[in-house]
């Protein structure tokens, strides 16, 4: 029974243990490493499934230990944690398979997969943290574990990307730390409690709590790539494709968006955030980020850079939904946490397939690739249409809930932002689709994987197709209670039930 309630710890340990074992394995032990990688991912998926079933039945999961006087490491699994954990556990499995295929024959794979697992362990910690102290520990661990992945190639550009990534995230971490300790010092509770716990304190000293709020949001906003804290994300594009998937869909920016949700929902509470007048400001910031990211994406010629700016834009949908105090709009934001993850990982896998198979990095090289690589291109098309928000894709569901929800709480301007963003999304994705399918093949590419029978290695292709189908399914099957949408509604119900 104790083992059952400690499931969050076990899920975290499964990745941590995998990391340690992989670090200890010799570089040449390829089969063993693959086995450990995949086994850990599968075990974790099972553990998460058990937790999912448990939380639905109202079971509580938790683990706590004192690290120092007054500092408690607490892991727990609530509905919000599970939204994030399930996403990252599912995507991790596919990303692992993809990465194994992608890094075939490249050096330092042991190091890569070690940090890769460490990264996922940190993400588990971020998702299951039961208080801000624990959240901070894993948030910083995530920074440390991703740095060697961003710099994996070791080239001067990679080192520069890593340096910029660190400068942003460590400075953000410092702001977050200052905010947390200031909050503790002001008498606030560090525990995550649905509906927040600082209501009275914030009424007594609104100025101080506004400062705390912005320190926390500023620190976390770095990872969520809120403008003007987004600068690291496009630069980190030098990393290999599986790492981009990890940064954009599985772990890093998600940890940021998730953190903002925790701060607004479970530290300040929606009502207090709104009462202090912080919600609308945060929403405005998110809106600016949405438009800015889209505009910048338009101008990019490199596929991955365009996708990166698209992430800057799309992740702020989540923040937007959280910041506006309304249940329906919150559902739109939360569900986008999953939807954006599924769609964006599809797009990055496709970009990786093109780069690995045909050496394609720029958009103008994509002419007619749809004929050479139909599956990958079809997956990309699904993802791109989802990002634009064409019904019945997942992106449409998010935008629908965001729009109707915003109207409901009297923020009609959000509709304008959504429309503008949709137009911009179409403007930067549709030309790509046109090139893929309708332009005559320029054959401006080099065959890097001759001898593969399918359009590319199966280890690359199969995960790509599966995540694309998941992204499609999240939209088409949104009516099911276990769909991301159903789950987001459950979370909001619990937050607003107070």
């Amino acid at each position, binding site marked *: 029974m104790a083992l059952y309630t400690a499931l969050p710890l076990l899920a975290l340990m499964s990745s941590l243990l995998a990391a340690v074992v992989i*670090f200890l394995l010799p570089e040449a032990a390829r089969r063993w490493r693959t086995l450990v990688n995949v086994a850990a991912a599968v075990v974790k998926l099972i553990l998460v499934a058990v937790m999912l079933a448990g939380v639905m039945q109202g079971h509580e999961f938790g683990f706590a*230990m*004192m*690290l*120092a*006087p007054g*500092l408690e490491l607490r892991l727990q699994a609530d509905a919000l944690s599970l939204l994030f954990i399930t996403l990252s556990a599912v995507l991790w499995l596919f990303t692992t398979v993809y990465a194994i295929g992608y890094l075939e024959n490249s*050096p330092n794979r042991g190091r890569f997969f070690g940090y890769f697992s460490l990264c996922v362990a940190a993400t588990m910690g971020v998702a299951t943290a039961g208080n801000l*102290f624990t959240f*901070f*520990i*894993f948030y*910083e*661990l995530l920074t*440390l574990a991703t*740095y*060697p992945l961003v*710099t*994996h*190639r*070791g*080239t001067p550009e990679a*080192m520069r990307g*890593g*340096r910029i990534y*660190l400068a942003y995230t*460590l*400075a953000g*971490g*410092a702001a977050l*730390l*200052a905010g947390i*300790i*200031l909050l*503790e*010092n002001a008498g606030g509770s560090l525990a995550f409690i649905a509906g927040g716990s600082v209501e009275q304190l914030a009424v007594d000293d609104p100025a101080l709590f506004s400062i705390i709020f912005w320190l926390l949001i500023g620190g976390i906003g770095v990872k969520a790539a809120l403008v003007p804290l987004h600068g690291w994300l496009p630069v980190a594009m030098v990393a290999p494709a599986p790492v981009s998937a990890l940064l954009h869909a599985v772990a890093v920016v998600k940890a940021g968006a998730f953190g903002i949700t925790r701060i607004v929902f479970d530290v300040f509470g929606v009502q207090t955030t709104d009462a202090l007048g912080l919600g609308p400001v945060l929403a405005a910031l998110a809106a600016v980020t949405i438009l800015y990211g889209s505009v910048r994406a338009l101008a990019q010629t490199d596929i991955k850079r365009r996708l990166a700016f698209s992430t800057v834009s799309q992740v702020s949908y989540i923040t937007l939904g959280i910041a506006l105090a309304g249940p329906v709009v919150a559902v739109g934001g939360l569900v986008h946490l999953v939807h954006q993850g599924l769609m964006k990982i599809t797009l990055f896998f496709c970009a990786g397939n093109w780069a690995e198979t045909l050496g394609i990095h720029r958009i103008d090289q994509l002419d007619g690739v749809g004929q050479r690589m139909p599956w990958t291109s079809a997956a990309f098309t699904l993802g791109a249409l989802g990002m634009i928000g064409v019904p019945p894709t997942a992106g449409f569901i998010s935008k629908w809930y965001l729009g109707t929800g915003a109207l409901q709480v009297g923020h009609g301007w959000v509709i304008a932002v959504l429309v503008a963003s949709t137009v911009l999304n179409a403007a930067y994705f549709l030309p790509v689709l046109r090139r893929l399918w309708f332009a005559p093949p320029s054959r401006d590419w080099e065959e890097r994987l001759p001898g593969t029978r399918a359009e590319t290695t199966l280890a690359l292709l199969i995960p790509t197709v599966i995540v694309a189908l998941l992204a499609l399914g999240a939209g088409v099957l949104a009516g099911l209670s276990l769909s991301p949408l159903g789950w987001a509604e459950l979370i909001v119900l619990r937050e607003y039930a107070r």
Partner: protein
Amino acid sequence: MNEASVLPVESHPGLVLLVFIPLLAAILSVLLDGRAARSTAVVTLAGVFGALWWVSAEVAAASQVRHLLGGWGAPLGIELMADGLSLAMLWLTWVTGLAVSAVAPASFAGRAEVSRLFWPLWLTLWAALNATWLATDLFNLYITLELLTLAAVALAILGGGSAALRAGMRYLLYALLGSLAWLLGVALIYAGHGVLDLHTLGVGLEVGPATWFAAALMSVGLMAKAALWPLHGWLPPAHAGAPAPVSALLSALVVKAAVYLLLRLWWWGLPALTGQGVALAFGVLGAAAMLYGSVLALMQLRVKRIIAYSTIAQLGYLLLVFPLASMAAWQGVLYHALSHGVAKAAMFLAAGNILMVVGHDRLAGLPQAMRARLGPSVAGLVLASVSLMGLPPTGGFIAKWLLLRAAFETGGVVWVSLIVLSGLLAAAYLFRLLAMLLRRPPGGEGDGVPDAHGAASLPVVLSVMPLLLGIVAVLLGFVAAPLLELFLQGAPFVEAAP
């Protein structure tokens, strides 16, 4: 403090053992040679461990343990006293001593002369350190300081070479002037008060100009020995020029002895003088050390130099207990001393391995170090660095958190900013080092120059010791609660009411 002096005097022979076991071993090791000398160290490790365990149990129960040599009490006899602070330093000495004793035979293999000199010097140093942690009499402390200095300088020049000799002479000059200043101060105190015992002095102190002058003299003397800015000039060449095991001892323990005495002198011996002016002065000196040491560490081109300047910066943290003056600050400073000691020992031993395998410790040569399969050393370097940066999940993080909490409680935005900034600077200079390890080596893949002989020539014990110490640095992040409970026995502050 007033209470402490009226506590019933206990007689605990464990305290005597802590000083006399290493002292006897030192004498024996001069007479014996080779393997036999080494075995005296093994016996010392076991004996000191036992005595330490015994004393720890007593301190946990009674907060303070004393022993009067020959039954003569103060003011005539020699008194030994152990409280939480002493225990923290005694245990740190033991752990570092264990690591250094384990690597020394392999490290000095093939240099019989060096090896023959090392054991008596190191054991003498150990006895002097333990005596410093336990003595309560200002004149006895002069003797232990002098013994400590002579052993440390001799160890620092053990490696030979004109650069090391010059550095050693400079160290000797600073340290002897420091001792002289201390002795003068002691004489003034004795002339004015007729008392040498720290505790007796603390009880009925009349503050006059002579006392102030004495206190200033003693402090300046200690600052020279602790390499506190601006008296730090001797440290980088001496610590960077010494053989790696010696550098570990010097950085982790020897400089801390002087800082330790600074704390003892002001918080136990002269509590009446330790007002705001003194607190601010030490705070400013600490801040200067933190910033100056960090900035200079950023500018170094050699690994051992970076680590040495980092020591200057990290010692500055210990002075923050003066301006912050609270239980939280005391906890933080104490824990910082422990974490820094372990992490620094790990780093110097790792740097020694790099030096041994690569042949130099220039930053630019580090990509090669990675290829030379220095895996465990590098892993230790990474873990220790994370702790020094104050990032989770490590002992350094717990210390930084406690210090930051204290800074917020005291309400000084300046101190908060200082700690945050200093942490970021540490990340900057350490990541500068770590980034080198990830960089692609110049000259392409596969031409593993030092590979074969490097891996073969590094004995296992040398190779894994940095990693083991790095793991201890991380573990310190998880065991702070019980450790602090023990080490806070007899602290000069009381817990603030919640």
